[in-house]
């Protein structure tokens, strides 16, 4: 999208936006993937060295889940940020999405391998515990998105079908927020903040005049 003054923007802001966009343009998606490896490695190191407290499994699980939600929010924010400020992260959005999947996968693996440990318990939890069912649902919906996050799939599906498929991101992010709200003990603020931010971002996707999701 070309740099152009948005309503209410002066020329000075346009030049800032232009510079920011030029800087973003210099970042190859590969850099996002490389950087994305750092937080989980840091968490793992912290967990292993006692820096996540005396019960590192739960802490690691929680850190990864929250990180996944944060990147999910960033992915979802790319379009409204562009609409409102002109700053354009679209080029990196697919990388954000893939990174989200990577974090959700790690979160799931920590839960499976380190936390629950027993196969029968894992299956029982998935079918019996609503917050886990919801979390697994979100993960399952992300699989086709991760598999088609490449140029070949985009070409094969065609941009219209590809974009329609990738609207699955909306239920994914909503399920992720609900998952967090459901697993909390007592009435806690943090999960509702995530849910609120996510609902607000989803609301920007609705074309209210036509009453349909764009």
């Amino acid at each position: 999208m070309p740099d152009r003054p948005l309503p209410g923007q002066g020329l000075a802001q346009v030049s800032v936006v232009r510079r920011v966009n030029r800087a973003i343009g210099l970042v190859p998606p590969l850099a996002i993937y490389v950087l994305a490896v750092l937080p989980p490695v840091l968490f793992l190191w912290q967990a292993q060295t006692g820096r996540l407290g005396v019960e590192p499994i739960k802490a690691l699980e929680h850190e990864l889940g929250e990180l996944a939600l944060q990147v999910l929010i960033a992915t979802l924010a790319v379009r409204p940020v562009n609409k409102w400020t002109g700053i354009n992260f679209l080029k990196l959005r697919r990388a954000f999405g893939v990174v989200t999947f990577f974090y959700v996968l790690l979160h799931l693996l920590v839960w499976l391998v380190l936390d629950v440990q027993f196969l029968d318990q894992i299956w029982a939890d998935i079918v019996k515990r609503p917050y886990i069912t919801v979390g697994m649902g979100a993960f399952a919906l992300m699989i086709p998105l991760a598999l088609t996050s490449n140029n070949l799939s985009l070409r094969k599906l065609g941009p219209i079908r590809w974009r329609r498929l990738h609207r699955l991101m909306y239920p994914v992010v909503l399920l992720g927020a609900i998952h967090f709200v459901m697993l909390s003990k007592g009435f806690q603020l943090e999960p509702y903040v995530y849910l609120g931010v996510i609902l607000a971002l989803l609301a920007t996707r609705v074309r209210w005049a036509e009453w349909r999701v764009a």
Partner: protein
Amino acid sequence: MAGRYKSDLNWSDVTPKDVWLNRRKLMAGAGAMALGSIAGPAAASLNARKTAYGEGLESNTWDEITSYNNFYEFGTGKDDPSRYAGELTTDPWAIEIGGLVDRPGSYGLDDILKDVTLEERIYRLRCVERWAMVVPWVGFELADLLDRVGVQPSAKYVAFETALRPEEMRGVRFPVIEWPYKEGLRLDEAMHPLTILATGLYDEPMPNQNGAPIRVVVPWKYGYKSIKSIVKITLVEEQPPTAWNEYSAHEYGFYSNVNPDRDHPRWSQKYERRVGGGLFAKQTPTAKFNGYGEEVAHLYAGMDLIVNH
């Protein structure tokens, strides 16, 4: 009366003091953990009478017991109590004892402690969240205090209340549950020799994050039944309202006996994980009544413990 209960845990199961003190020093040297976040034990030892017996378990370290806590009055994070509970004033302290008792009144902590024999009680602790510890508590039997104030025959339950001080407890500014924290026991549970009022651990005065200056410990029930920093004890005829039960009755029953056969609706209770085992700690099966069935199962004879969870 002290000495009614024989623990199956041995004094030798406890991590020796010099060992945990050394561990603390090592941690302090390591840096990050030492930034004032963990209160060290006060200098004065309580000289609690050692009760000993049994074997098979090993106490968690001072650091584990005092850095991983649920005490939502100071925040919902596990490390919030160790960070912020220091803001609670625990001296002077008094407990308002009332209801169906012969000698109601406000009892100062010194007064409460003057005639009791402090004992070391090494108990398993099982949290409803599926983590577990072994804690060398110091305390005396709740029955001692109840006998002293004179429980009237019509009393059937004991209700407890935690202090509520918004200026000292930052967690209560948000309604995570309904404050003040309330708990309750049936009178026979309260009078059981395993049930203690604890004033310390590892022979040191109770750290604030663990419920200073005085708290209940009921080892066969999920941890939240063991109410901390008590300011009120009331003997009543009807089952009293309790904090987590009021919040979500199908998740947190009034009895809340540790029971692997009755899952929490959001997670299984069949297994538990001992705190302190690191990233690859194994889960172990949870024992009914947290392993205290021999001592307490008779209290629930004929009761359906799934319905009365």
